[in-house]
């Protein structure tokens, strides 16, 4: 993985020292909260309902075991013994004291981590495929490009005060998007052109929030050496014309929608012509320098096994068989696999890991996965380099720490924002709903019967829980001071991207889990065989049967 050079290290250390002075002045009363707020936000420090919240960047989700141990230590020493992995592949600590934050940043800098640009109207953490570098269907590892974008965007003087926050995602598997690139301000797909030359397709104007948009193609093919200059051109057009008078209309998706993609594209291209041969032109040596940090691990020569057969051959433990079927993915290296550690255990808030679990994961990563861990945007963790022959042993180790929940990709593997239990913006709670769903449907055979379905829960219209792109989505609303939930069906984040539609009037807190059970009953009772996934059934039949089952007849919705 990428190792800081002296400049990187100096930047994060100096930033932590600078913030120590700012915190000191705030505590002494020499600067006001209004003056302090933009400073703390630039260091990832929010004020939530009950406490400060510190968001720590995990570039493209990649962690070393050493970094994971540091996160465990911070959770234990400065927080309440846990961290929350977010949909941006970052980690959030919900209870730090202000006076401790500079020391936390010092400790993070010791392991090449920071909280820079995890908040504010700037370019945020660039995300990627959680199977980057190991996926058999990948045409090129996207992480070197993510790292180049990170270096270009960090403290970029032009883009520190954009109209709104800005999110970029990169995928190296153009035929199987696991990074939801169509729902980012800029989505980047590594592709080859007709001549077989490597480059990028650039998508722009995607996003969730109160006005979800699927990104549009800004450029079908961009040569690899022009990546940064083209991104700079897009950001310049956005920075110049993006609305600053209304925060709800300030994201680039609104600008692209109002201008139209053709006009937006022509402005970007005109800007790009001015700068494309300038200092941002990537040279192969620079790409190779960064790529060197992501070279494949030193794998052993091992025989490849058929994972579907392997699962059936692992004896009488049904939990292990489900685990192999649901949580284990193929690897490009014969004899290896990737293992998803679900952070969606029963009665545990989705995405949370305790300090002891984080320490255990670090130890297990060292022992089983070459010391590497990847955070997924679905709020789970991946051990990317596990020998297939050691799966039984690994499963047992994970189970000792409540980390062997075999529900990856199933209903109870929900994405869930912190909701009204923590968030200042939320209208309704998310976590208790996710826990009740986990309780209600925590039967491996039932989950296996329902099969692949995504459930995503947001506590407000800002959509941090990605409810628009859940096959089943829940949106928390405030209905006369009472929590209520709108049910959204039909969303999908990948190559077959679609935005879910609200099915009808909202459900009360007491009704909402029953409503989900009704939706599942409609699907299970009417699908065309077990191979028809929930999303395929929904696309075939539409909303009508669900409305009828939920509301009595579909006119009432």
């Amino acid at each position, binding site marked *: 993985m990428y190792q800081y050079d002296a400049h990187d290290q100096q930047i994060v250390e100096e930033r932590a020292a600078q913030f120590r002075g700012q915190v000191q002045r705030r505590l002494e009363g020499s600067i006001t*909260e209004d003056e302090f707020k933009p400073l703390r936000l630039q260091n990832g420090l929010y004020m939530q309902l009950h406490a400060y919240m510190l968001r720590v960047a995990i570039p493209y989700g990649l962690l070393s075991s050493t970094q994971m141990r540091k996160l465990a230590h911070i959770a234990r020493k400065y927080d309440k*013994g846990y961290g929350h992995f977010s949909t941006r592949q970052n980690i959030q600590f919900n209870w730090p004291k202000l006076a401790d934050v500079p020391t936390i940043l010092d400790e993070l800098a010791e392991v090449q981590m920071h909280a820079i640009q995890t908040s504010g109207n700037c370019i945020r953490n660039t995300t990627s495929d959680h199977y980057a570098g190991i996926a058999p269907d990948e045409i090129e590892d996207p992480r070197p490009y993510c790292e180049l974008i990170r270096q270009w965007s960090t403290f970029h003087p032009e883009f520190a005060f954009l109209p709104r926050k800005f999110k970029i995602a990169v995928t190296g598997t153009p035929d199987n998007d696991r990074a939801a690139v169509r729902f980012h301000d800029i989505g980047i797909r590594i592709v080859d052109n007709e001549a077989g030359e490597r480059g990028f397709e650039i998508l722009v104007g995607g996003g969730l929030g109160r006005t979800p948009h699927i990104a549009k193609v800004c450029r079908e093919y961009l040569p690899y050496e022009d990546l940064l200059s083209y991104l700079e051109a897009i950001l310049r057009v956005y920075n110049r014309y993006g609305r600053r008078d209304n925060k709800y209309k300030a994201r680039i998706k609104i600008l692209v929608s109002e201008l139209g993609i053709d006009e937006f594209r022509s402005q970007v291209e005109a800007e790009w012509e001015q700068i494309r041969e300038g200092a941002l032109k990537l040279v192969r040596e620079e790409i190779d320098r960064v790529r060197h940090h992501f070279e494949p691990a030193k794998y052993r020569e091992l025989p490849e096994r058929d994972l579907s057969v392997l699962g059936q051959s692992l004896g009488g433990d049904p939990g292990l068989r489900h685990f192999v079927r649901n949580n284990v993915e193929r690897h490009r290296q014969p004899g290896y696999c990737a293992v998803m550690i679900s952070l969606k255990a029963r009665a545990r808030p989705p995405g949370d890991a305790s300090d002891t679990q984080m320490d255990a994961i670090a130890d297990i990563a060292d022992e089983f996965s070459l010391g590497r861990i990847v955070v997924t945007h679905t709020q789970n963790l991946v051990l990317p380099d596990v020998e297939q022959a050691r799966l039984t042993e690994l499963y047992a180790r994970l189970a000792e720490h409540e980390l062997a929940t075999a529900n990856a990709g199933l209903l109870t593997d929900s994405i869930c924002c912190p909701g009204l239990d923590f968030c200042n913006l939320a209208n309704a709670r998310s976590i*208790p709903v996710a826990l009740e769903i986990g309780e209600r449907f925590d039967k491996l055979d039932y989950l296996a019967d329902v099969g692949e379905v995504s459930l995503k829960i947001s506590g407000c219209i800002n959509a941090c829980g990605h409810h628009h792109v859940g096959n089943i989505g829940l949106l928390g609303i405030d209905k006369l001071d009472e929590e209520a939930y709108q049910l959204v069906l039909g969303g999908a984040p990948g190559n077959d991207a679609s935005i879910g539609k609200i099915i009808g009037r909202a459900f009360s807190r007491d009704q909402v889990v029953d409503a989900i059970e009704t939706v599942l009953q409609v699907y299970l009772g009417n699908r065309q065989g077990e191979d028809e996934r929930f999303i395929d059934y929904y696309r075939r039949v539409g909303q009508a049967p669900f409305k009828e089952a939920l509301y009595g007849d579909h006119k009432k919705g």
Partner: protein
Amino acid sequence: MARSRGTHYVVTANTTDDGSAVYLQHDGRWVRRLNQAWAIASETTRDAALDRARTQERHICDPYSFKVVIGPTGPRATNTREQIRGQGPTSPLRRPDSEPATRLSA
């Protein structure tokens, strides 16, 4: 003593040191229990209390007011947000020995 009928307000903020929710008392001190807060019966008094709170911003952040009802043990929030903010998260925290920050005594 505050009258018990009609609209009442409580002035609240988050502390600068740890961000926990606090509530203004009549004497200008801040407490961590909503039921010990000053239930303000008029908008004029509320606005004056908010102005006074804003002068204490070394210790607190972003004061605002919200409506309460007067229950047998003191002011009580009527909306879910302020109820949760006053009581702490309703979902389980990962460390068994931890208590929500706002459940500290005054």
